[in-house]
């Protein structure tokens, strides 16, 4: 039996070669050779929208030989944010979690920076809007990849017929499908007159003043249109300013033309208002229109989603993005980044947007003119201006530009809508401002 002796040089060379091969090979091709990856994605309320995400994840998993576990977690009853809190406390759970608006910031210390994938994605898909940067970045570190799934603009969804008949406003002419908006006259003054006219006609605008997201978002955009901030970007209290006073005066006038029960409205109230045919306008993403298409087609045929009215300091629309974030305790970060990069390719994004019937909004500027928004209907073109294709309005979130951890408190404590309601119910302006200042002071604790 012959036995070949291995020289020291041969041994060193063989070891070096095999180590190099192991290090440079991204994934070893074998069944699930690249490990496991688990994801907690937001459970979409558009029927069938989850299937596009599932298909994309499975395609990627088959290509990269990764075993995936995909959970869809509903936001009903805040189950998603409760799960985020639980995983953050346990430092265990999914590798990737789809986080709504404020949660990447509130968990910033527990998230893996994704600058290495965000920079190429921005080069590929175009820049992201300011709200995505505000919510998704901390000290130059990207806390997640903006997810098109679930991201939305809560702009006006008007009844074409009622607005034309009672407010003398042709919303289709103002925001024509396929071309730029001609909405210079679409200001808060015009909006207020239209609200009054529709109220008189028995079809008041369905704008809530409760404590849930839809109510706060509208108030946020209106405050920003006046340049009103409760706390500025540096964390200074700016409650007692003329801009805030103007916003409250505006809301006081507007409230007189809204349904009397708006203080109790939640996020479903405005949808029901539109679908029941009771109002001429609501502020919502196209989910209300989608429900109307199913339950009240005669209402859906008259719906037109368009831009926000402009105030003295500009035209602002509420924008609520979701982010796909990777927990720092994830055991397969490279695979997670590879998947997020795959989900953010233009073809993947388009597939998900189409599956949502145009509800989902990509954050990237090159992806706001997808065909789906031109084509969906009835009426055809109803969602053309939904993704803000002409950058006609500044996409913003209520309580910004306050430091995000302070802004989150202002947002969830509904300080803006509470201020409007207190002032409307007869509290003196300065007392309302003092109350809000006290609240904001409390939100600044670290």
């Amino acid at each position, binding site marked *: 039996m012959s036995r070949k002796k291995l020289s020291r040089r041969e041994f060193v060379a063989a070891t070096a070669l095999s180590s190099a091969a192991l290090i440079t090979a991204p994934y070893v091709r074998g069944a699930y050779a690249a490990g496991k990856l688990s994801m907690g994605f937001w459970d979409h309320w558009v029927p069938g929208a989850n299937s596009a995400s599932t298909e994309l994840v499975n395609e990627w998993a088959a290509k990269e030989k990764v075993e995936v576990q995909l959970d869809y977690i509903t936001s009903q009853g805040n189950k998603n944010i409760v799960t985020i809190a639980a995983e953050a406390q346990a430092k265990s759970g999914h590798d990737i979690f789809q986080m709504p608006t404020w949660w990447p910031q509130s968990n910033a210390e527990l998230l893996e920076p994704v600058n290495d994938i965000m920079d190429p994605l921005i080069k590929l898909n175009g820049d992201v809007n300011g709200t995505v940067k505000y919510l998704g970045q901390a000290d130059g570190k990207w806390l997640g990849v903006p997810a098109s799934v679930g991201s939305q603009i809560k702009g006006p969804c008007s009844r074409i017929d009622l607005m034309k008949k009672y407010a003398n406003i042709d919303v289709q002419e103002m925001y024509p499908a396929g071309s730029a908006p001609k909405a210079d006259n679409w200001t808060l003054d015009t909006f207020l007159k239209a609200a009054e006219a529709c109220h008189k006609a028995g079809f008041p605008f369905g704008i809530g003043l409760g404590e849930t997201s839809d109510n706060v978002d509208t108030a946020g955009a209106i405050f920003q249109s006046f340049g009103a901030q409760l706390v500025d970007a540096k964390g200074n209290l700016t409650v007692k300013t003329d801009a805030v006073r103007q916003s409250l005066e505006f809301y006081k006038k507007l409230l007189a033309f809204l349904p009397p029960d708006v*203080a109790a409205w939640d996020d479903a109230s405005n949808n029901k208002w539109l679908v029941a045919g009771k109002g001429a306008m609501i502020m919502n993403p196209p989910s209300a229109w989608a429900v109307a298409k199913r339950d009240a087609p005669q209402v859906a045929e008259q719906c037109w989603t368009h831009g926000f009215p402009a105030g003295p300091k500009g035209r602002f629309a509420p924008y609520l993005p979701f982010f796909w974030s990777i927990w720092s305790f994830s055991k397969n970060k490279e695979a997670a980044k590879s998947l997020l990069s795959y989900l953010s390719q233009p073809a993947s994004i388009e597939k998900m947007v189409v599956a949502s019937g145009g509800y989902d909004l990509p954050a990237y500027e090159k992806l706001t003119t997808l065909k789906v928004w031109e084509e969906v209907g009835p009426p055809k073109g109803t969602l053309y201006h939904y993704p803000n294709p002409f950058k006609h309005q500044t996409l913003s979130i209520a309580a910004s530009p306050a430091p995000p951890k302070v802004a989150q408190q202002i947002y969830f404590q509904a300080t803006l809508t509470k201020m409007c309601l207190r002032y409307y119910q007869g509290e003196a302006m300065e007392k309302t401002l003092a109350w809000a200042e006290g609240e904001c002071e409390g939100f600044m604790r670290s």
Partner: protein
Amino acid sequence: MVDVALQSSRTATAQAGRKRAGLRNALRRKSMSAFLMTLPLILLIAVLVIYPALYSLHLATLNKAMTKFVGFGNFEFLFKRETFWLVVKQSCIFAISAVVFKALIGFIVAHFVHNVPANKQRKWRGMLLVPWVIPPAMSTLAWLWLFDPSYSAFNYTLSFFGLGPIPWTGDAMWARFSVILVNVWYGAPFFMIMYLAALKSVPEQLYEAAAIDGANWWQRIWYVTLPMMRNIIAITTLFSLIVTFANFDIVRILTAGGPLDHTHIFATWAFRVGIEGSDIPLGASVSLFMVPILAVAAIFILRDITKRGNES
């Protein structure tokens, strides 16, 4: 030497025998076997109740970023907040008024059921327990639709009499009334069934003796029924007070604390601050604030029961 060796081995055997006998005796003792049988439950409670309770105590002593020990800092902060005192006030209004009405309605209904002929009682008991056996999250959803700001079935009915519309969840006073009403509707059957059991245990001879003494209906209630039911009333009240103070689902579903925070109670505000506002230490502090209030109530009520037990 041999003797010594034998002695020591004999001692060891005797010791082992004593140990075995001791173990046997211990196992034979009722308290020991009871302890062993309840051990799985004790462990379960330790894991599911004691650990989270201690963990929430730990959380309540951390700063917002959960990086620093602040002792009672979170409580000091809360004591300076106007909204916190509003929540304390509302929790007391909510719990005390709901428990009083639940007890009152439970007491009255228990008497009615007690007076129903025995063969028909089961049917009544079953029907009256329905609110209590439906998961509150589900039944509250039905109430939410009845109170719906725009499509309230109550307002629709009231409109036939030229009344309303009432802002059931949109006005502070009505919203408080609505959440208390639903809690009373949900909890009264529990009182009813407890009081019914207590009523059945009052010896009939006492009523007969009272009747011979010429006691009227009210005197029979005041001097016979109530004293005999005192312990049950106290324990039921304590139990219900704890559960009502800690309520979450009814308020969360019906008003989510609004309007203008006027229906927030400890649990809903703790959720708002801790989970929605991502300030978990402050949320933990809010929910822990209930503990001393309930502990004081428990001490007084239980002391009273023990005192009466000793007297009798």
